[in-house]
């Protein structure tokens, strides 16, 4: 099923001041895969994500989503397929109530009212926020905001979920809930994060970025076993793979 | 200088609502026409920014007092006139509803006084003219101060005219005007300095924002002609309607002067203003004091107010149009 592939070919991007941000990124992600993109600050993770739904146009190279190369003509179709969850939920929840935020996408797709309502209810139920649908976003906790942001994307019925730092700023309990939630999704997932312990739980495959390039791309456990590679890319072994501080095993 | 519901009459409030509505509809149409949709969230959050910024004060050296940003001019510089007007309108609406700044009926006056003048007069005709095609620190400061002063002076002229036409308070037009204009002169200077400071900060750190915002881009044809025609028509319509309404409305049941005082007292008891204010009044009196509800019958007073208001606004519109024509004729605009 070629439909849910995300593919980047020799993707290059320069900032307006000509500083290179991406220097030839290539990868291919298959249907149902769950892939982590890790790397230090400024490695180019967020810039890469912004290419995946066409917000940024590459200086050279190409992104393909499903059967389409991402161009100005296909960008709308691609955005419907690729659901983007941004780093700061406050940017994503711009309407007055949780419900309105979740309905924003479906309404823009021009769906009939019943269908919109169905989708909103289903999305809210999935993330467990049905009881808070009339809350204004500024009165939600950080964890609830994050889940509302995810619901606002789920209601578009995307095939691919792209997430930027989904666990940032959450307390341990909210983080645990979020990981459980993401685990239950069958979507193709692309997650940019610093939270390597979450990666171990969610992603079989990891792409390591450094200075706008891909340094490694492979099974998560292999990559996280390579201490030198991680060190060189401003990362360190996830806590649970480090030796026990008490017995050093 | 927020107008308050308590200070205006229904006729004035309604007429100003109609005028503000006209401008708002004009701006929305304008924006829908050609605005890139990036501005929609930008307008909203910049409105919120102005709201937050108004609560942050800075010390004015050697005076012991403090000033803050008003924001009209800043929004116009960042967004252009039409978008800035709508953004400012929403700031004022939230203030009216949550902080008792003004009121719902006076909101029309407030949006007009604090939005129309800075966005459609001070910004295009003063600020942009002074800035010209290349921005320098000196021009920025001078332009911002001049524009802020003009915007606020026109705004307080608006406040004074609307209050006067409503006839709720007995201050004479001229002394009230003098007072308000004088108070708003330093406020204008402060507003200009604050705006210039923030803009020059942006200019130094992220100049591309101003380039995209329209500081260096030519303004295009001034959007004012259509707007002023619309305003003139609204003014004419509303003043006619209100004059008719006011003159046909029975006022007999009011707790009016004629019932409260003995008929003989009416003429003997002349008003005795405080001597100092009387002097100012004598020196500045341009218009007769609008304070004789006992002598002018209510209906006449009401219709007179509506008529004078309508005429004044029309006159103002006319003067602006002429001024604009002169300006646009004199300085050919570069660019596309």
């Amino acid at each position, binding site marked *: 099923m070629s439909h849910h592939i995300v593919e980047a070919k020799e993707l290059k991007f320069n900032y307006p001041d000509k500083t290179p941000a991406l220097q030839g990124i290539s990868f291919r992600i298959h249907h149902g895969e769950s892939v982590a993109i890790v790397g230090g600050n400024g490695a180019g993770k967020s810039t890469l994500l912004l290419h995946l*739904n066409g*917000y940024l146009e590459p200086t050279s190279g190409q992104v393909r989503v499903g059967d389409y190369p991402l161009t100005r003509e296909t960008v709308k179709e691609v955005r*419907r397929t690729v659901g*983007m969850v*941004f780093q700061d939920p406050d940017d994503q929840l711009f*309407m*007055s109530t949780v419900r309105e935020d979740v309905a*924003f996408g479906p*309404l*823009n797709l021009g769906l009939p009212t019943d269908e919109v309502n169905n989708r909103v209810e289903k999305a809210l139920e999935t993330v467990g926020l049905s009881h808070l649908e009339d809350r204004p*976003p500024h*009165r939600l906790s950080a964890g609830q905001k994050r889940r509302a942001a995810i619901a606002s994307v789920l209601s578009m019925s995307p095939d691919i979920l792209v997430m930027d730092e989904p666990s940032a700023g959450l307390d341990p309990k909210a983080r645990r809930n979020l990981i459980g939630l993401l685990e239950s999704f069958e979507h193709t997932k692309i997650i940019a994060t610093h939270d390597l312990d979450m990666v171990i739980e969610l992603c079989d495959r990891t792409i390591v970025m450094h200075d706008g390039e891909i340094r490694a791309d492979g099974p998560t456990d292999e990559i996280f076993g390579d201490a030198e590679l991680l060190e060189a890319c401003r990362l360190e072994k996830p806590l649970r793979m480090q030796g026990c501080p008490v017995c050093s095993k | *200088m927020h107008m*308050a*519901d308590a200070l205006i009459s*229904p006729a004035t*409030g309604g007429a100003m609502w109609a005028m503000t509505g006209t401008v708002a509809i004009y701006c929305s149409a304008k*924006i829908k026409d050609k605005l890139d*949709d*990036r501005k*929609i*969230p*930008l*307008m*909203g*959050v*910049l*409105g919120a920014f102005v709201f*937050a*910024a108004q*609560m*942050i004060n800075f010390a004015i*050296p050697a005076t012991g007092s403090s000033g803050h*940003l008003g924001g009209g001019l800043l929004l116009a510089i960042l967004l252009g006139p039409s978008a800035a007007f709508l953004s400012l309108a929403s700031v004022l*609406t939230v203030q009216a509803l*949550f902080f*008792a*700044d003004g*009121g*719902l*009926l006076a909101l029309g006056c407030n949006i007009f006084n604090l939005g129309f003048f800075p966005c459609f007069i001070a910004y295009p005709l003063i600020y942009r003219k002074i800035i010209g095609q290349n921005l320098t620190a000196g021009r920025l400061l001078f332009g911002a101060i001049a524009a802020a002063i003009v915007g606020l002076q026109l705004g307080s002229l608006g406040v004074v005219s609307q209050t006067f036409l409503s006839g*709720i*308070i*007995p*201050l004479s037009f001229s002394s009230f005007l003098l007072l308000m204009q004088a108070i708003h002169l330093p406020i204008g200077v402060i507003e200009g300095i604050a705006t210039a400071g*923030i803009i020059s*900060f942006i200019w130094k750190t992220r100049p591309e*924002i101003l380039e995209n915002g329209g500081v260096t881009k030519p303004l295009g044809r001034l959007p004012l002609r259509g707007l002023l025609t619309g305003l003139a028509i609204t003014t004419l319509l509303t003043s006619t309607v209100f004059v008719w309404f006011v003159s046909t409305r029975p*006022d007999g*049941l*009011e*707790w009016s*002067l004629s019932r*409260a*005082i003995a008929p003989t*007292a009416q003429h003997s*008891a002349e008003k005795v*203003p405080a001597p100092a*204010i009387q002097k100012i009044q004598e020196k500045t009196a341009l218009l007769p004091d609008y304070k004789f509800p006992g002598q002018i019958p*209510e209906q006449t007073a009401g219709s007179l107010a509506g008529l004078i208001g309508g005429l004044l606004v029309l006159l103002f519109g006319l003067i602006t149009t002429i001024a604009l024509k002169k300006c646009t004729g004199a300085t050919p605009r570069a660019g596309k």
Partner: protein
Amino acid sequence: MPSIIETALYDIGRLETLAEKDTVVHRLDPRAKLLVTLAFILAVVSFNRYSISGLLPFFLYPAVIIGLADLPPDYLLRKLLIVSPFVLFIGVFNPFLDREIILQIGSFGISGGWISFLSLLIRFSLTVGAALLLIATTGFPAVCMALAKLGAPRILTVQLLLLYRYLFVLIEEGITMIRAHALRSFGRRHLNYRSFTQLLGNLLLRTIDRAQRIHMAMLSRAFTGEIRVSRPTRFGGREIVFITVGCGAFIAFRLINLTDLLGRMIMEIG
């Protein structure tokens, strides 16, 4: 200084919580409440500037609404007392300028200025109170929806909603920045000009960046330049009754001076 901002945030939050109650008044369609509020304000301001007794019956409206909507009168009163300084500033001249004695109570003469000042304060309390009641029983987003349904330009209502949404975010950001500054400025009350422009400049830059991110978030959910909101409304019999009774009462109060009438009745009995 942070206290001004914090108070504002608290105030908005408090009104918002009040608006979440579930009472007869809260359940009414926002359009009905908006229209009645406007009718009330119009009726109040249509009295001439010496009116006092004619205005008094209008206090019935806030009293009824506060009762029905289960609102805390002390809180609303306190909000009223922090009056808009402009009204007082202008009104305070009345007693000096208008010294004509128009009311004699025994040997004590009251000038027109004092009467009109009092009338001004009454009008002020009534009109501002009505606007506060509207928010406290309806909530800001619902008022915006009502405006939209009554024909306000869509872009304006969208602005209002976005402004309101990000007010909270920006005020929080502003508070954080001011606190950070206060920690390093050792108790100076106000920022100096330089730190003021830097602080606001930085806040502005963050705001502009945020706008860009919001735009991205909108685009990624199929935004095409128009914000659609769907909110079920029910304009039914209850609303019609509310509008009829409300406006009917205001017209009656406007035409018949109840206070005067009552006074006369009592005088006659006496």
